[in-house]
């Protein structure tokens, strides 16, 4: 009897293992199909197809996506678009991985900094041929920084609809109270510190400057404006501990600890927003504060300008772009969807929100975007000016992990006030190890690409 049980179990295992291998075969042959498929492109042009389009975001984003889809249906009646709203980071990448591994990816995929991690593994379609083969489409009218963020080693994988940079928002009332001049596009870190010292009032819980170094854009803005960076330009070396880097990080530490004009992690209250409650003089953070400030601030006047300069201006830029899955079965239709979603009609819907900047320069510079009516901020046009000194995230193959270790180290320096010299060697070791791994993986992926 026991033997029978044993055989049954073994048989089931074998079947399962076979099934596992089978699916591996299927996915690798999928990849071969893919290269074939691009040859018979256009076959899907006449039939009705459904394109699945995955994105993350809240109600605002869902409404925008649906509004764009409505416009899309007006000009296109044989492509159905199924909008799939997925939970955001970190579950988003996990969901994409699972769908791709099962051989059934979403056709069009919104992605941000993780774009390269996926592209390097050969699961995203090179959009180059579609861009070149389409007479109605050109990359020229787009902001370069937007396209560059999704062009890896010369290949464009995604096209963004919206972008925005780190900006500086300021509480006019607090500046008036202390008889200070409002900051402008040329404000330097030294001036920020000077004004911050005057505005800070610990008894009332008021800080001159918003929290520093809590996430990549904040760290990056500080480093870049002081002539330093996290990685070298080709992401092959760790450069944060260059003399400029060390100096910049020490200044961040000084602002938060010795000068105490920017709250550290312990000084940020739970459940209360320091900026909208009027307890921050200068907020240096993403452009989404425009919409949230309009909605939540009524007790003081505020405005915005460019993020402070050190040796140079620096505006780290966030965006997200629409990518095409290599395993998609309807690539021509998927391209039509991406093209429409990043085109002028879709971007005008986005522009009317007066939030993120449209990636088409003409739409961004139009009144649809820039005319806020009576709403603050007065200096909204600096959103466009910030793009002059814009640059994308240092999204190497190990982006999320390098980010994690850098942030841990920065937290030790800024929140726990550990000496910079004690932290940097360990950080360098950790990042170098990750960069070496990235290099090894890159070689493997490049080899795989050549095989195909």
């Amino acid at each position, binding site marked *: *009897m026991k033997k029978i*049980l044993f055989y049954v179990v073994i048989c*089931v295992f074998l079947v*399962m*293992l076979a099934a596992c291998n089978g699916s591996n075969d299927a996915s690798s042959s999928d990849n071969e199909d893919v290269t074939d498929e691009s040859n018979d492109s256009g076959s899907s042009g006449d039939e009705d197809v459904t394109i699945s389009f995955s994105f993350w975001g809240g109600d605002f984003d869902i409404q925008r996506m649906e509004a764009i889809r409505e416009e899309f249906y007006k000009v296109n009646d044989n492509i159905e678009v199924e909008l799939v709203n997925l939970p955001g980071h970190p579950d988003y990448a996990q969901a994409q991985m699972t769908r791709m591994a099962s051989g059934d990816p979403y056709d069009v995929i919104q992605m941000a900094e993780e774009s390269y991690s996926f592209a390097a*593994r050969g699961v995203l379609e090179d959009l180059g041929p579609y861009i070149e083969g389409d007479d109605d489409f050109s990359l020229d009218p787009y902001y370069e920084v937007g396209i560059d963020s999704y062009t890896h080693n010369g290949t464009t994988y995604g096209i963004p609809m919206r972008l925005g940079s780190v900006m500086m928002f300021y509480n006019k009332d607090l500046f008036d109270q202390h008889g200070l001049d409002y900051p402008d596009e040329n404000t330097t870190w030294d001036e920020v510190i000077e004004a911050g010292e005057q505005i800070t009032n610990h008894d009332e819980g008021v800080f001159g400057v918003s929290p520093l170094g809590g996430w990549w854009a904040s760290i990056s803005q500080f480093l870049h404006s002081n002539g330093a960076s996290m990685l070298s330009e080709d992401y092959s070396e760790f450069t944060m501990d260059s003399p400029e880097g060390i100096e910049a990080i020490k200044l961040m530490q000084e602002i938060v600890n010795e000068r105490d004009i920017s709250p550290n992690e312990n000084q940020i*209250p*739970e*459940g209360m927003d320091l900026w909208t409650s009027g307890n921050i003089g200068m907020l240096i953070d993403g452009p989404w504060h425009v919409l949230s400030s309009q909605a939540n601030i009524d007790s003081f006047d505020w405005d915005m300008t460019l993020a402070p300069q050190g040796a140079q201006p620096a505006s780290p830029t966030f965006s997200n772009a629409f990518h095409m899955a290599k395993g998609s079965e309807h690539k021509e239709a998927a391209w039509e969807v991406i093209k429409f979603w990043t085109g002028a009609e879709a971007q005008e819907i986005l522009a009317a929100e007066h939030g993120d900047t449209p990636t088409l320069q003409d739409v961004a510079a139009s009144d649809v975007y820039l005319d806020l009516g009576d709403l603050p901020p007065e200096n909204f046009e600096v959103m466009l000016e910030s793009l002059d000194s814009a640059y994308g995230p240092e999204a190497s193959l190990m982006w999320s992990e390098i980010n994690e270790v850098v942030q841990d180290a920065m937290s030790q320096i800024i929140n726990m006030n550990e000496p910079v010299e004690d932290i940097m060697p360990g950080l360098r070791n950790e990042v170098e190890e990750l960069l070496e791994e990235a290099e090894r993986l890159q070689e493997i992926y490049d080899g795989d690409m050549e095989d195909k």
Partner: protein
Amino acid sequence: MGSEKRKFWLYISPFIFGFTVFIGGPMIASMYLSFTRYDVLTPAEWIGFDNYIRLFSNERFWDVLSNTFFYVFVGVPLHVILGLAISVLLLRAIPGISFFRTAFYLPSIFGGVAILLLWNYMLAPGFGGQNVGLINGLLSMIGIEGPGWSSDSNWAKPAVILVKLWGVGGSILILLPALAGVSKDLLEAADIDGASSFRKFFSVTFPTISPAVFFITTMEIINTFKMFIEPMIIPGLDKSWTDTLMVHLYNNAFEYFRMGYASALAWVMFFVIMVFTLINLYFAKKWVYYESK
């Protein structure tokens, strides 16, 4: 095959099928994957013991392992003792006892992320006397200056344990009926012999409920080894103070594209939990009393 036996196989087949497809199969697959470099998106590549070597030479692994042990060795005994103590109190027939029973059980129904977020507020140390959370507020009323909890390297782990104790109601649900089942005759006999309350508890009550205590201890040990959301929602200022094995596994598998490494980690976890469960079972023979024996 007799019809009895045939029925046996028929009835048990759903389990066998479920086990092989959803547990046994994936386990074998993860065993294989633990010897490969696998990122889900590209084919797995055999790399021998590299993942294990890397694992044991990774400082982060030892951090999260010692955190996990701390939760098991400090958190589990606290959980069991607190569960027992509350259960003994809830056994008394005082007016409104059903209210108290409900009140102590209720928190374990409201679990999950929402409650943990509330704990974040309650544990907030505040700054300069402002925005102080409930816990430190209460402590200051009796003249104790509360610690920084998550922002203090000594208190970050106890904060996680404190939050985990919130779910003690689940154990009370098991201990309370066990306590009610303790023989009145035996307790009375002990009374007549002049036994003190402590003596009665350790010589009569505890042996009778020992299977229930053993059950919740075992489950708690296993659950604590697998602890995940608490350190995710209430992390220490430095995550290496609070992260558990499970958090480390999750980050590697789903954020860093390291499914092979994560599989190796899962197997190491499996062996650690198994060893502890075996030790627990071995010692159980010495103190757990089954009436049927």
